[in-house]
Structure formats: structure tokens, C-alpha cells
């Protein structure tokens, strides 16, 4: 027995499908006979998702200006109720993905399996693999009822890969009356300007933590990042402290990064942080506490004062360039 039909929530910005969606599509088509996407983006993504293995775009219309959680969950639940649903719905652990998953779970009275980094077929039912305790233990969970399985998949769990499929067919998926639940509307959007490579895409990430001591010292992280054409990142501790914006945060609550090289400066390596960067190909850590958990995942660990090591490192790199 195999999983027959999977729906993937497809997110897109200006007609360009999110990488996280493409990652999930790659895994979904490995697991199921039929893969279709549900989206608020419309028919314009049909070619791109088709090339990644989806055969159908279920386009949810009339969502302009609305927060997407309620209308998308409403449309999916209505289709399931009408007997046209899939075996499982997969969504990225994104702002929209979490909103849809929560509402959908109540509508069909089924749980959500969250923080999934891998999916396996367990006797014809999907099971999700979730790392806990900062990734030292994996828990594999499956549903025990015949209800549609809802999974929230962490970014960068799979590699996006084209399947060479034709453009997906497009069908409308209608939104039922949402009552008060659909009343939240977006009145304006603000894009925070950032220079240099983005955390998601950068080959090198330089991140700073509380060990930097004070806000002004984050400049060392920025300087090093600039020299290495890296994206600057941060631990939750210094985001919470207001040193840098939330968009810098690497970890469970922030971004998951898997760069070629991750440099952690003054970061102790709390579970919250390790989850977001443990998949990096190479890790360098600089921390004064030899017992810091970050060293357990580091290829190179310097037990020392970031205030001494970073300036010397920056100076040495400037001398080379």
C-alpha cells in the first residue's frame, strides 16, 4: 500500500514559487502517486509547480488582501468534506503554513505533526520525523485515524529538484463562508531593506550571540560577514534583547540555514539555535566557555574571547584582500 494523493500548500511571491514549496514537492512526488498543489497564487504558478512534479493547481481565489490562514484552510476543509481531499496535506513551517495548518486541524478535527524534517511511508500512511533536544533524538510519529494527515515541514529538509513535468492543470477551489474568521485584512506591506546576501541563500553565515557582550559589538559580526560576502545572523537571545531585527534570527523560531560555512561568534548553542544551523556543512565556533554545546557540533572550535579573536581575524582577512 502506498500513499495515493498528497496536496502541497504552494506559496509564491510575485508569481515565483517559494523554495520551501519546491523542496516539499520533491519529497511528495517520491511518496505519492498523485501530487497536487493548493495555492492562493493562482494559475500563473502552473508551469513552475508542474516542472516540479505537481499535476494540478487547485487555485483558491478571492484572497487578495486577506491573511491566508482562514480562506486556504476553509477551501481545503470544504474539499475534504466533499470527498475530494488527499491523504495528506504538506505545508512549510512558514507564517502562512502554520496559520493554515492550525485552522485546518480544527476544521477536520485532526492533529498536526509539526517540525518535520523527513517523511516516511509507514504501511500506507505517512509518518513524520521530528528532531528534538536540538537534534540529538528523532521522534517518528504517524496518525492513528483515517483522517487527512496534516504535516508542517521545516525549510531545507529536502532538496528542490525539477521532475521535468508538464504545466499543471488548473482548477478552482472555492472558499466557503468564513464568518468572522476571515475578517483580518492586510492594509499595507513593508519591506525591510537589507544589503548583502540573504540568510536563506548565503553560502557563508556569520552569526553573533550574547557572548558579544553589548549591542555595539555586533558590528564585528557585520564586518566579518562583509569580508566573507556572508549573511549576518543572530541567536534568539540578542534578537530578544533588541540588538538586531527578528529577520536576523537563526534557530527554531527564526530561519533554518544550511550554508557551506557557519561561523558562530559568542553563541553558546542552545537547542533553539542548534536546530536552525546544525545542518551547515562546516561550523566554526568561537566562545569563551569550553563547555558550550556549540562546540559539540563544530568542525573547528576556538575557546576564547570573541572580543579578541574577531578583531584579529578581521585584520588578517583585510590584510589578505
Amino acid at each position, binding site marked *: 500500500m502506498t500513499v495515493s494523493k498528497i496536496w502541497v500548500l504552494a506559496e509564491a511571491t510575485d508569481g515565483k514559487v517559494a523554495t520551501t514549496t519546491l523542496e516539499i514537492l520533491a519529497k511528495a512526488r517520491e511518496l505519492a502517486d498523485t501530487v497536487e498543489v493548493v495555492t492562493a497564487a493562482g494559475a500563473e504558478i502552473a508551469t513552475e509547480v508542474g516542472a516540479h512534479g505537481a499535476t494540478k493547481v487547485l487555485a483558491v481565489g478571492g484572497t487578495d488582501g486577506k491573511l491566508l490562514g482562514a480562506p486556504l484552510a476553509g477551501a481545503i476543509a470544504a474539499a475534504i468534506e466533499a470527498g475530494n481531499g488527499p491523504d495528506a496535506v504538506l505545508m512549510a513551517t512558514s*507564517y502562512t503554513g502554520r496559520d493554515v495548518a492550525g485552522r485546518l486541524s480544527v476544521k477536520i478535527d485532526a*492533529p498536526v505533526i509539526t517540525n518535520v524534517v523527513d517523511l516516511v511511508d509507514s504501511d500506507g500512511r505517512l509518518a513524520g520525523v521530528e528532531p528534538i533536544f536540538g537534534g540529538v533524538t528523532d521522534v517518528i510519529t504517524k496518525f492513528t485515524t483515517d483522517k487527512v494527515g496534516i504535516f508542517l515541514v521545516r525549510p531545507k529538509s529536502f532538496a528542490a529538484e525539477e521532475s521535468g513535468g508538464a504545466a499543471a492543470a488548473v482548477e478552482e477551489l472555492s472558499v466557503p463562508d468564513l464568518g468572522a474568521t476571515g475578517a*483580518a485584512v492586510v492594509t499595507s506591506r513593508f519591506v525591510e531593506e537589507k544589503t548583502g546576501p540573504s540568510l536563506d541563500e548565503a553560502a557563508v553565515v556569520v552569526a553573533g550571540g550574547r557572548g558579544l557582550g553589548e549591542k555595539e559589538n555586533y558590528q564585528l559580526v557585520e564586518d566579518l560577514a562583509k569580508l566573507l560576502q556572508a549573511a549576518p545572523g543572530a541567536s534568539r537571545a540578542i*534578537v530578544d534583547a533588541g540588538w538586531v531585527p527578528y529577520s536576523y534570527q537563526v534557530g527554531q523560531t527564526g530561519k533554518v540555514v544550511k550554508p557551506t560555512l557557519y561561523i558562530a561568534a559568542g553563541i553558546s548553542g542552545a537547542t533553539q539555535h542548534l536546530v536552525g544551523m546544525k545542518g551547515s556543512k562546516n561550523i566554526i565556533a568561537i566562545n569563551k566557555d569550553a563547555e558550550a554545546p556549540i562546540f559539540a*557540533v563544530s568542525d573547528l572550535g576556538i575557546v576564547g574571547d570573541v572580543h579578541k579573536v574577531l578583531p584579529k581575524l578581521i585584520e*588578517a582577512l583585510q590584510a589578505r584582500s
Partner: protein
Amino acid sequence: MLLGMNVVVCVKQIPDPADPGALDPQTNTLKRDGKLILDESDSYGVEMALQLVDTAGGGEVTLVSMAPNGEVSGLRTALAMGAAKAVLVSDDALAGSDALSTSKVLAKAIQRAGEADLILTATESSDGYTGVVPEQIAELLQLPSVTFAKEITIDGGTLKVQRQTEAGYDEVESPLPAVVSVTAGVVEPRYPSFKGIMAAKSKPVDQVTLADLGIDPSSVGWAGGGQEIIEVAQAEARAGGTIIEDDGEGFQKVVDLLAELKVI
């Protein structure tokens, strides 16, 4: 104009994150024995609620929580910050509850807490971090919702939220009542004063069971889970690297590795 507003804040009492967690080998769920503290993620919602009530010129902040064994130590922290009262749900049948069970219980407890203009939560707890509870509560209560708020204002009875996005933030408007999840770090949670701590000891905590809330025990906890853990395995460990003590020349090792990786 609203004259005063009542805000309910959902808070979780969790094992101290400074102590390493463990799974109960019998049930494969997180062990929750020992003293519980207020989840730091929730302190931002409590602070936000206190500020909103203050700005509105009246009303009160009510806490809602679910915890084993009538645990109140985390609630007392939030009461000491200034919340007026709390509803605490404790029931043996809640053991093994997943996010959906938790939301069903919290939704009923919110209704018990009285008329609320606004319901605040964290974006996710620090120990379970499923991140789906805020939307589940909103759907159960049939309310609009805005997740990942970094700023909340009330303007003539309309809720205005700056909502975190991948690119920056969106301005979102919604009628009240509504459910809003608050991003950690967006406000500075106040420290309870000595007076606050003393006052918190006598603030009312309404301790209730599933029966009090009219919830069928078979719909929550282990019985209502609808999922099972089929395996717990050690994840592949990273091979240990080279750890050196900085002797003033530690930076050179970094430069060497950067060159080896062709980053420079």
C-alpha cells in the same frame, strides 16, 4: 471608543529550559515533573496585554493556562507582573495532550474567563514549539486572528497589528474580538515588584477540571490524540571537530580553514 478592554493571555508553565529535557521512556512524551516556570515566550504577551489595558484606561488581564497537578508557580509570576486573575485547567486525563487537545481546553477556559476583547498568545512555546495553538484557538472560538505580531494598537475598536513577514512586516487590521500571537522580544517584560509579588499571592486562580469545562475526557489527552509515536531514535551525530584554546593565534586556525574551504 472602547472604554477599557479585557485581555486574556494564554500562558504555559514549562520545566526550566536551563535543565536538559528528557523523554519518559514509558510514554515517549516530554517529562513534566519538577517545578514549572512561566515560559519566557509568554512574558511578552503578558507585558503587551498590561500595556494595552493601561492605554485603554481600564479593564483587566486574565491568564489562562493548562498544567498538571494544579501547578501555579509560573502563573504567580505573571500575576505579579500585573495580571488580575487566572483560570487554570488541571486534569489527569490531559496527560499526553497534543496541540489540538491543548487548544480545545484553552478555548473553553477562555470562554470561562469571561468576555474578552482580545486574546493573546506566544507564537510558540519554548518546550513543545508546535506553533499551531494560536490559530487552533481562533478557529475553535470562530474568531479572526493575526499571528506573529510585533506591535499591537487598538484604534476606535479596530485592532491594528504589525505582523512579521519573510520580507519585513504587514499592517493588518481586524475587528475585535480577535486572537493575536505575539513575537518574542517585541516588548520589554517588566520585572515583578516586591509589592506585585506579595499581591500575586492573594489574586484569584480559578482551578478547574475537564468536567467543569464540559469537555469529554476521551476527546483529549492520550485518548483523543489521533497520532502515535512509532519510533524514537538517536539522530546521526556530527563527527566531533578540533577544539583549541585561544593562545592569541587562534584566529590563524580560522583563516586556514577559510582558505581550505575556498571561502577566501
